[in-house]
């Protein structure tokens, strides 16, 4: 499979932006300045980016509590995201949502979600909009291995099939729901579940951008062509705790180190693209440093940004009331 240079560069930039964003949040959280719960997507970047590479702005995604990566991959404003996480009025949600509720409907981003399994039903609706409004769009639900057991998710697989919706169910399987292993919590297999709800099943290694890109391409094309929904099962590893503050005693001491060493989507991407002469190391270096600068600026801007005002408390509960 040939991938155009600009897509490669864009994808690398997105993955690097997510990585930098998350690593920086990890450091910043430790200072105590970031309020609330923060769930990092580090190590899973290729999934969001490989999937979203096939989506246009009018396609729709729904995300999870671990949503920063999906937001960035779908094009949500990074500075606005950072400000949101800091609870500033310049945040994409004016500081009223925080990390778990970043959304940008204008960019087809239907929201991170504090409710496990909250997204899949919404995505059935977004897919229905695409179908009835004939936008040629698809709607993509990202959800975790833990969420793959929620009734809302399972019902949505069935509903999407019954309505033959242009929906893509991306099960991001990082092996854990909080501190519980998927091997404990998920009986059977995702593959059989896909069959159980009458949809094609795709799977791939989520640390390999090229594998995700290719498999997601097929899966999304199927849904977009009107043949009904699909499931894409992405195998991943999360590099930090469930949320910031989690000591991760339930994981073998070298599990994360191993993943960082052997399953780093960014270094794999670099090795492959430079090795094959698709991209030059220098271009990637340029991206790395541009991203670093951008995130630094985003953090500084967020810290300096104004807080919400009293009137924001009562605002936007309703369109009219």
């Amino acid at each position: 499979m040939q991938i155009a240079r600009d897509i490669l560069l864009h994808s690398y930039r997105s993955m690097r932006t997510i990585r930098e964003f998350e690593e920086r949040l990890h450091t910043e959280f430790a200072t105590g300045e970031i309020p609330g719960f923060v769930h990092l997507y580090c190590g899973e970047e290729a999934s969001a980016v490989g999937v979203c590479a096939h989506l246009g702005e009018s396609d729709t995604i729904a995300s999870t509590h671990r949503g920063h990566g999906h937001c960035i991959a779908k094009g949500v404003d990074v500075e606005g995201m950072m400000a949101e996480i800091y609870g500033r009025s310049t945040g994409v949600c004016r500081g009223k949502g925080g990390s778990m509720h970043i959304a940008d409907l204008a960019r087809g981003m239907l929201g991170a979600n504090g409710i496990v399994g909250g997204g899949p039903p919404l995505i059935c609706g977004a897919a229905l909009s695409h179908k009835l409004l004939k936008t040629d769009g698809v709607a993509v639900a990202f959800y975790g291995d833990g969420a793959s057991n929620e009734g809302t998710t399972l019902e949505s697989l069935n509903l999407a099939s019954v309505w033959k919706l242009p929906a893509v169910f991306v099960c991001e399987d990082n092996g854990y729901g909080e501190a519980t292993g998927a091997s404990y919590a998920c009986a059977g297999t995702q593959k059989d579940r896909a069959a159980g709800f009458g949809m094609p099943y795709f799977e791939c290694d989520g640390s390999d951008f090229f594998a995700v890109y290719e498999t997601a391409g097929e899966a999304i094309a199927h849904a977009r062509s009107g043949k009904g929904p699909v499931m894409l099962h992405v195998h991943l590893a999360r590099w930090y705790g469930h949320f910031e503050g989690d000591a991760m005693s339930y994981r073998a001491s070298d599990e994360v180190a191993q993943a960082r060493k052997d399953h780093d989507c960014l270094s794999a991407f670099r090795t492959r693209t430079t090795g094959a002469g698709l991209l030059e190391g220098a271009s990637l270096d340029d991206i790395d440093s541009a991203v670093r600068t951008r995130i630094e600026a985003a953090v500084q801007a967020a810290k300096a940004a104004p807080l919400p005002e009293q009137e924001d408390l009562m605002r936007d509960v309703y369109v009219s009331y």
Partner: protein
Amino acid sequence: MSKKSFRQAINEALRQEMRRDPRVILMGEDVAGGQGGSSGVTDAWGGVLGVTKGLYTEFGPERVLDTPITEASYIGAAAGAAATGLRPVAELMFVDFVGCCLDQIMNQAAKFRYMFGGKARTPLVIRAMYGAGFNAAAQHSQALYPIFTHIPGLKVVVPSSPYEAKGLLIEAIRDDDPVIFLENKVMYDDEEEVPDEAYTIPFGEANLTREGNDVTLVAFGRMVGFANEAADRLAKDGISCTVIDPRTTSPLDSATILDCVADTGRLVIVDESSPRCNMATDVAALVAEEAFDALKAPIRRVTPPHTPVPFATVLEKLYLPDVGRIEAAVRSVMGYKARQEA
């Protein structure tokens, strides 16, 4: 203008709005009926009590969508569709089933706009039947509007007659916020004159169905009719009542309630929902805080007891507020003498 049943009024509202705006769609369990059946007849039911009958035939399978029996996913789908350009009217059948899909209503649809900093619009209507009197027992007879009223981000409509139902449903469909629209299942065959053309009744504007000087009655949904009957009976004894139908519990027309209590000085609230943390307590608290000065007597509530809805007819009758109990409550506040006066 012609006589229409509550059922017809709702059907007509849906039909007219679907004709007017192609983004309005319907979904729910058997809102058409017959998909996958062996006779090939579709639009076989038009809803479990026939309220949406004929809409599938007119608007087809793209706009009248039968669903599997999976409330969480299709109510959530309705929310997702509403946030992305459609204007879905989703039918939950019995409001008692909200326990299967509350999250999508309470944490998703109701909160999108606020959580997302004002960037979302969720023009969603959820229709559902409520109420006792049908021998449908504990899991098919609840009122539950207090639960929706409690949740910021939702609007809640409880129409009291066919005329009200049509105008309020059209308003609900045109409204840009998530609206819970509750239909008392015992009223579907009630009839009255209802305009043939589309019209709207604004939310948050109470309707005074009787005006009087002695006691203010606030009643919701089916209870409005009971309150009017009680008022008519009381009038014969020279007790004159104002009867307020707030129409929507959220937003609530507090101003009208407070004005009327300011005039009458006495308040009785009739609410068919369970008595704790319900609309009767809500209105009582409003008045005890903001019209305290005007009050000449305790605020009386006429509600069911704190029990599930029983099955047997005799018990269900005892359970529900009735005209006699409303009358008695009014007489008791009329007869009230403060201890210091007595």
